[in-house]
């Protein structure tokens, strides 16, 4: 049906469109790290970023203002651990290093593995909330009946926009004991 010239042009078109197809499939997968990068850069979606390394001289409290930080906890699905912050709310100066402990206990007869996932609201504050030490950086194991005290150490960036006076940090605790999730990525 096609003459030689049409056949060659068609082959070229097919190859190009196939390349585009495969490229767009790859693009779909590329959206995953791209999404994470954008969330990190812009503090979108309440993602507060990985372990924060303090710069020298950074810990200089801005005494002119106080920021309220609330802590809320949730257990995902049937997660049975008791999990609550020692205090529900603290007031802290930007630039001031603060520690808040979370009390957790495993009331069951089994050893269990858990992962805490943080989320900050309002999301525009997430970029300014730096976790120096957090139990959410690693999975947590508790033996049957074991209790623990897990620390969170954080500092709020002095550049936090002035109109943000209250931040809420939420942790959701997931039960990973029987999960087949391979922990390739550290949650942020």
């Amino acid at each position, binding site marked *: *049906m*096609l003459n030689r010239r*049409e056949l060659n*042009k*068609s082959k070229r*078109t*097919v190859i190009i*469109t*196939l390349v*585009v*197809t*495969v*490229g*767009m*499939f790859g*693009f*779909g*997968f590329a*959206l*995953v790290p791209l*999404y994470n990068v954008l*969330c990190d850069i*812009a503090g*979108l*979606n*309440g993602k507060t970023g990985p372990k924060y390394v303090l710069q020298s001289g950074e810990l200089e409290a801005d005494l002119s203002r106080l920021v309220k930080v609330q802590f809320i906890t949730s257990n*995902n699905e049937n997660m049975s651990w008791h999990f609550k912050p020692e205090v529900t709310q603290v007031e802290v100066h930007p630039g001031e290093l603060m520690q808040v402990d979370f009390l957790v206990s495993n009331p069951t007869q089994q050893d269990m593995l858990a*992962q805490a*996932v943080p989320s900050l609201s309002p*999301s*525009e504050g997430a970029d300014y909330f730096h976790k120096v030490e957090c139990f959410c950086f690693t999975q947590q194991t508790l033996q049957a009946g074991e209790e623990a005290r897990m620390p969170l150490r954080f500092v709020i960036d002095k550049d936090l926009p002035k109109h943000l006076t209250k931040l809420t940090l939420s942790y*959701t605790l*997931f039960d*990973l004991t029987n*999960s*087949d*999730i*391979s*922990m*390739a*990525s*550290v*949650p*942020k």
Partner: protein
Amino acid sequence: MSAVVENELNEHHHHGPAKGISRWLFTTNHKDIGSMYLWFSFTMFLVGGCMALTIRAELFQPGLQIINPEFFNQMTTMHGLIMVFGAVMPAFVGLANWLVPMMIGAPDMALPRMNNWSFWILPFAFTMLLSTLFMDGGGPNFGWTFYAPLSTTYAPPSVTFFIFGVHMMGISSIMGAINVIATILNMRAPGMNMMKMPLFVWTWLITAFLLIAVMPVLAGVVTMMLMDIHFGTSFFNAAGGGDPVLFQHVFWFFGHPEVYIMILPAFGVVSQIIPTFSRKKLFGYSSMVWATSSIALLSFTVWAHHMFTVGIPLFGELFFMYATMLIAVPTGVKVFNWVATMFRGSISFETPMLFSIAFVILFSIGGFSGLMLAIAPADFQYHDTYFVVAHFHYVLVPGAIFGIFAAVYYWLPKWCGRMYSETLGKAHFWLSFVGMNLAFFPMHFLGLAGMPRRIPDYALQFADFNMISSVGAFLFGATQLLFLYIVVSTIRSGAKASAAVWEGAEGLEWTIPSPAPYHTFTEPPVVK
């Protein structure tokens, strides 16, 4: 369906099409494949329609009468999947197969064998998809938009078959799109430069580019689902560092261009029909091409308007609101151009024209509700309510579906050489028009009054409009059996049609006999 024509200048074919089932299994002829796509899509339309009627029967009155909530969720999910992937998209591919080669003076599609594969994947994919309803745990029940984690961690076992089915439909669409692009770019008759192509060819070319851009992204997102469900990854699971909202971004990056894929060919159809029955050239051909291209390009920038309540920061919400409002501009241009074509024309109201006029008016109403939905703060009240259901059914039913009906009435005489009964065609139109409006107009009110989507039972203040809507739906559904009768009786015993069929019709397809010979344009025509 089409007659066999000897062509002594052609060395390859001295025989007609094969006889019996082999003809259809192995055909590489664009007319045969086009017909198969159209019959397949109509079958799927009736199947999806039965699911819709099951839904409307349950929603006829408050309370649970007929089915339980679990099965209801399967019906809403499958209705959406079947209509989108089984009825609308294959119908447009069928029209492309039949019409594009004839309109550009080509003897067939560029890749006839791949064309055959593109079709035959579909019955296999949909048999598998429909069989999930009978599997343990039932069929997919998470909406046609299958958000995670409802569709991953909480899905029934059949979800794996759902994913497989989506992959297959995607491969079929991608292959079809490659074929369309290769055909249109390389096989136009001499003298037919791009700006002389019929608008249906233009809209299909643009649609095909959208398809190869976004169907692979859909394939990507269902692959990620598969990996989360079976291979321990956490794309959409916060426990492993993932995010359910990521699903929505990737899905709608596909999903929004997808809805333009479902309407652009209908724009093309209507742009062929209105000039014919107004006996006047299409107003603003080049701006129609520009507008369609703009719509396609802009469609990549608006996806998160489906996600206004997900917790996107202010800047993001504003961007997506503005971009979505902007799409109204080229769309409006198209509507104005159709109206300007009719204005000071010489109009007659045969069935294709009735469907096309209804398309312009009712699709525009869908466009207005779309504009309202674009306003993000107002969308907080519309999102996930029946207002959205009304919106998309107005753009899809009197939009895509009426466009397909219009195309069938317009070109059926060319395909089979016989005229349909104008009286019956008009009856089909009016009954569909009334049924459709009765079914979907009240849904605007239901949504505004506070009725959410995807619920099998509702509070008492929603009862009256739900009842009206159900009556309309049954009327619309029953009328499509009339359509089936019309098509079959036309093919078997309609009055003979001429080559030109319609006074005022322009285009290469009207220069060949009716029915179109099995092989046409084996020698390219000269286009002035």
